[in-house]
């Protein structure tokens, strides 16, 4: 059991907890924990920039979004009669899947690993972002613009009131 595996187990456990939590707010917080775990994994992979992004945006911004959504629909939550039995069955199902995956998926991934080819050039993140994947930045601009318009289109009156 390495530190790396432990982190992954943490992420998986947090994910299961996020699904199983009866309270939506708790779910949202567990989701944040998943993000934190993922960002730790990224740090472990020597990917600090991605990790910082993950930590700030996913664990921060998205959690804020979720929490505010939860607070908006809070009193409706109890009306949705969830079938809790399905959620309680989750650890069992996860366990079965885990065991099955150990026997079936792991050999598959091992064989997949044989196909790996090394990406030779050691570029810095800066060159990758600015030179190689420059058009992705355009895409990012597009999606941010789209996001603004979506929110604008969904809540026009609220904006006016402000």
């Amino acid at each position, binding site marked *: 059991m390495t530190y790396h595996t432990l982190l992954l187990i943490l992420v998986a456990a947090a994910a299961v907890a996020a699904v199983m939590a009866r309270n939506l707010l708790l779910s949202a917080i567990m989701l944040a924990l998943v993000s934190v775990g993922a960002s730790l994994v990224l740090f472990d992979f020597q990917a600090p920039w991605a990790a910082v992004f993950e930590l700030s945006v996913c664990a921060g911004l998205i959690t804020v979004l979720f929490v505010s959504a939860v607070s908006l629909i809070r009193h409706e939550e109890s009306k949705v009669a969830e079938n809790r039995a399905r959620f309680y069955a989750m650890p069992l199902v996860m366990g079965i899947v885990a065991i099955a995956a150990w026997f079936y998926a792991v050999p598959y991934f091992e064989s997949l690993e044989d196909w*790996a080819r090394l990406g030779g050039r050691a570029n810095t993140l800066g060159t990758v972002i600015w030179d190689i994947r420059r058009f992705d930045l355009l895409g990012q601009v597009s999606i941010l613009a789209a996001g603004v318009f979506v929110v604008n289109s969904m809540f026009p009156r609220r904006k006016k009131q402000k």
Partner: protein
Amino acid sequence: MINSFSMDWYFITLIFFAGMYCMLVSRNLLRQFIGLEIMSKSCLLGVISVGAKTGNLALAQALIITMIVIEVVVVAAGLSLLVKNYRITNSVDIWSLNNLRG
């Protein structure tokens, strides 16, 4: 002990399954989004794992940063749909979404 790459993907599979299970069994619209987020996280881990394996971490990081930006916007759009729907129908129950049929 199996090696690191297979181990990563083993857990990625599990996390993905957890998200999928959530989307399959939950009736609450918000929980659908939580399941969706969990699945997205598994994707992200997959990309970084591959990046580490092929020694192309810079590219993987670039991809992940873009993915995170997209994820935020998508989640924001989804949540605004949810809130809007809640305002009109006063419900977040996914089972009530069956007016279009036939």
